[in-house]
């Protein structure tokens, strides 16, 4: 780990002042410290935002729910309002990682965590994402890499909660020194490599801080289901996940851990149309359409079968049906 200066901010303006001077934000540091230890990141200075009171907690307001950037995965998974109205988000938070990690991991840090690509994480490879000449995954070991997306970087987005945020139309609220900050639709927050997201995975500027995640007011008939499929049942990221959310009029199906961003399964969505009730047959058909547009790599087409299974099950769960 490279030596760095360390500051602790007690409020948002303190944090912003530090960010302006080039400090990088640290929430609980679970991902950040790993990156520092591996020297994948080697910032000169860090500012801890962990003590900023205004970033903590979960509030119900204006019919919606505001999740502070420092709220933990555990709090998010256990929150009664989220469990009731945004069930898939609660499940995604509650099933991530391990109990110890969920007790510390913040939602801000979770959506900003860097990808798990083993070439990116290893100091021995200077790949595209680090400014190098090539993506090693293409000709190398890509069993766990993206099955959707055009490259040229083939990471999968590692956040458990990101697909749910996209599916529920959540907004990410930021503050920044220059323009004061903005409100970004979750769907616009995550960035594909082809849209400029090679060296980073989201639209945040270097001196911009996520302050909260806003969920819209729930509507009548809203329902959702979450499924994640894991090789190991803990201490690992899922192989594939899926959020199926019905907003009273239509379904949104968002896949996780299969593309550089949360990935809309548009094939499945169009097949479902406006069908509110899910029968096993409809779920099966929608699942079969989930791989539309897939671009598996040399070793990872097998994960498309998991995508199918996840879509089928998430739909059934969302509609309160048994998974046979």
């Amino acid at each position, binding site marked *: *780990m490279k030596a760095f200066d360390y500051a602790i901010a007690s409020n948002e303006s303190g944090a912003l002042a530090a960010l302006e001077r080039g400090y990088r934000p640290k929430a609980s540091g679970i991902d950040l410290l790993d990156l520092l230890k591996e020297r994948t990141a080697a910032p000169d200075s860090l500012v801890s935002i962990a003590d900023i009171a205004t970033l903590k907690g979960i509030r119900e307001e204006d019919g919606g729910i505001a999740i502070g950037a420092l709220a933990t995965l555990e709090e998010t998974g256990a929150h009664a309002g989220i469990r009731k109205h945004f069930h898939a988000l609660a499940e995604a938070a509650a099933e991530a990682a391990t109990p110890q990690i969920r007790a510390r991991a913040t939602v801000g840090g979770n959506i900003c965590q860097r990808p798990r690509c083993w*070439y990116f994480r290893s*100091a021995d490879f200077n790949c595209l994402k680090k400014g190098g000449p090539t993506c090693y995954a293409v000709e190398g*070991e890509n069993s766990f890499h993206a099955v959707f997306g055009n490259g040229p970087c083939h990471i999968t987005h590692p956040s458990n909660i990101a697909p749910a945020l996209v599916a529920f139309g959540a907004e990410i609220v930021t503050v920044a020194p220059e323009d004061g900050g903005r409100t970004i639709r979750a769907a616009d927050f995550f960035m594909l490599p082809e849209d400029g997201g090679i060296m980073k995975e989201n639209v945040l500027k270097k001196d911009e801080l996520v302050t909260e995640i806003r969920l819209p007011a729930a509507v009548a008939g809203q329902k959702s289901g979450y499924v994640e*499929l894991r090789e190991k*049942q*803990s201490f690992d990221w899922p192989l594939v996940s899926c959020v199926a959310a019905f907003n009273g009029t239509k379904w949104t199906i968002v896949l996780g851990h299969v593309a550089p961003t949360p990935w809309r399964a548009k094939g499945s969505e169009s097949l479902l149309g406006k069908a509110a009730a899910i029968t096993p047959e409809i779920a099966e058909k929608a699942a079969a359409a989930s791989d539309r547009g897939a671009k598996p790599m040399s070793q990872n087409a097998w994960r498309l079968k998991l995508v199918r299974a996840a879509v089928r099950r998430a739909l059934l769960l969302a509609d309160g049906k048994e998974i046979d």
Partner: protein
Amino acid sequence: MPDNNVAIENALPRVDVRQKVVGSAKYAADQYRPNMVFAKFVRFPYGRGKAVSANVEKARRVPGVLEVDVRIDDYQEMPGGRIGHIVAESEAAIEDAIEALDLKFEHERPLTDANLEKQYNGPKPTGNHEAIRAKFKDAAVVVEALYQTQVQTHSCLEPHGSMVDHRGDEVEAWASTQDVTGYHDGLKGRVGNVPGSKVVVHSDYVGGGFGSKFGLRAEGSLAAQIATKYKRPCRVVLDRDEEHLDAGNRPGSIQYMQLAADKNGRILGGKVHCVSVVGFQRGGGGVNNPVGGLYKWGDIEKSEDEITLNFSIPRAFRAPGWPQGVFAVEGMMDELAAALGMDPVEFRQKNETSPRRARQLQTGAELVGWSERKPDGAWPGRVKRGYGVAGALWPKWPTPCEAECRIARDGTVEVRSGVQDIGTGTFTVVTDVACKALGLDRSLVSGLVGKSFYPPGPGSGGSVVSRSLVPAVREACANALKQMVAIVAAEWKVAAADVEYADGVFHSKSTGRKVPWKSVCGVMKDSVLVAHGKWERGWAGESDGSSDCVQFAVVDVDTETGIVRVRKIVAVHSAGEYVNRKTAENQICGGVTQGISYALFENRIQDRQTGAMVNADFLNYKIAGPVDIPDIVPVLDQDDSDTGVRSLGEPATVPTSGAIGNAIANALGVRVRSLPITPEKILAALEPKGASA
């Protein structure tokens, strides 16, 4: 005579459980001495090639750096190859120096995967059984298959490390070793002219070794070299990446088998070709396909070969060679049984070499609910349940061991032996055996191991420690008691034969006088009474030295996703006499856990382009976690013929992957013959039949 009942009645916790839980147990990696320096190897990261440039001057100028030594153009054939070292006042300075070195490498395309490189040129299944049928006229069935196993790294929780303190005329070392005596032998030649008697090695607590912590090793040599040069304590502790790369692995295997059986279920024989997939040089632990033992194999023609890859050399790993071999052999047993239309347990019973295992097959089948097992692939629904079984045996390797019993005037007892506790519970074993032998409880007795100045004992390999140590401890205690009896007899002026001792009280048969343990200790002439004990080959208790076991697995396999959940493992083990229930059951549960991890998860993955290991950590190198571990039922199997302590540590991990492999095949109706059994392989196996929902 060993007492069969003691052991099994003793379910006290480990003597050091508190130290381990609160963190007061100090491992080698916990040793920080005043004035200490740190040393670390500089390593080549890729499969083959060399460093072509290094900015050594810049690295030397990093504050706190004492020494930088890098070999340019030194051709390496493994990721993690050692091309030099750095010595500094802190670990941070070492890291900065490595950065400052700005190493540049040249590397060539390496050999990283036996399948990829198509190096296997042995037999493959062809379906042509003419030759074998010609040889075995009674053959009713012939089965033929190719099995494969992956490379598993040792992944000890405590990394390899040494702290050597050279004080000019004496040397003290703290080592994470599974062989205190061997480490001492290695160290004493490497510390200048300090005599061996002035070299002391401590190995008080060790966080696992599994076969990878024998001898001084490279870390110990470097620590000794630097400590000797600077006359300062030097610490060398590997990080997790180095652990995976250069601290041991279980070689992979490819095993071709073709076997015939007659219509009554008797195996007639066949052909076996075993290939070990090793590093750039061969090392310990190549595949041991146990045809010849385990079952009655008939007439087997066996050949062996090796495939070398660009990786570090393998080392012995908990039951070297056995898990690989048993996975294949037990798979074949089920394939033969299926071809004959026979129940796998019944088929094994017909070919069993050991009456003990025959009994265990029955016990285990009852405990696991074998009667619930359905024909292969016949479990209804998407999630299919499967049952599987596999067995193992473990030979004996008689190994000399010495122990010393020291009784102090205050009545306390220390029993010492120069073996080590690598997490196995050896402190507890010594303590409990001595307590029983001396008729005292743990408040007075301490069993001590892990120091080079204790009487020599074997390294922790071949599961020999407890079996060699227990008789030595008993003899030392018996000899000590003789001396105590002599003291009492002299005091009472009676013959020694008149004095009896039991449960802390000496008693004269003729006069009826009694005196408690502590009072006798109080009148000892010397401040410490010392008695020795030694065990060697041929000791009376060595009647039947081998261990046997059978494990049953219950799995649920999701046919839509290929995800396996192991639900239950029933592990029936006979290891003779058990000293302490908790440590014995721990060995079994630990072995099973490691076996599950081997069966489903662990796998070294090298980048085919460069040879770097892409999963050299604990996030991408998958190891079974708490949620992946099922209900494990350890059964300490014992009968009247079971005398003496036998081996338990290694056999416990041998059959698990075979039992799981068979359970998965039973669930699915198709077989995955390659470890680890991942969702990807299961989905591929289900593909041709379209069995997935």
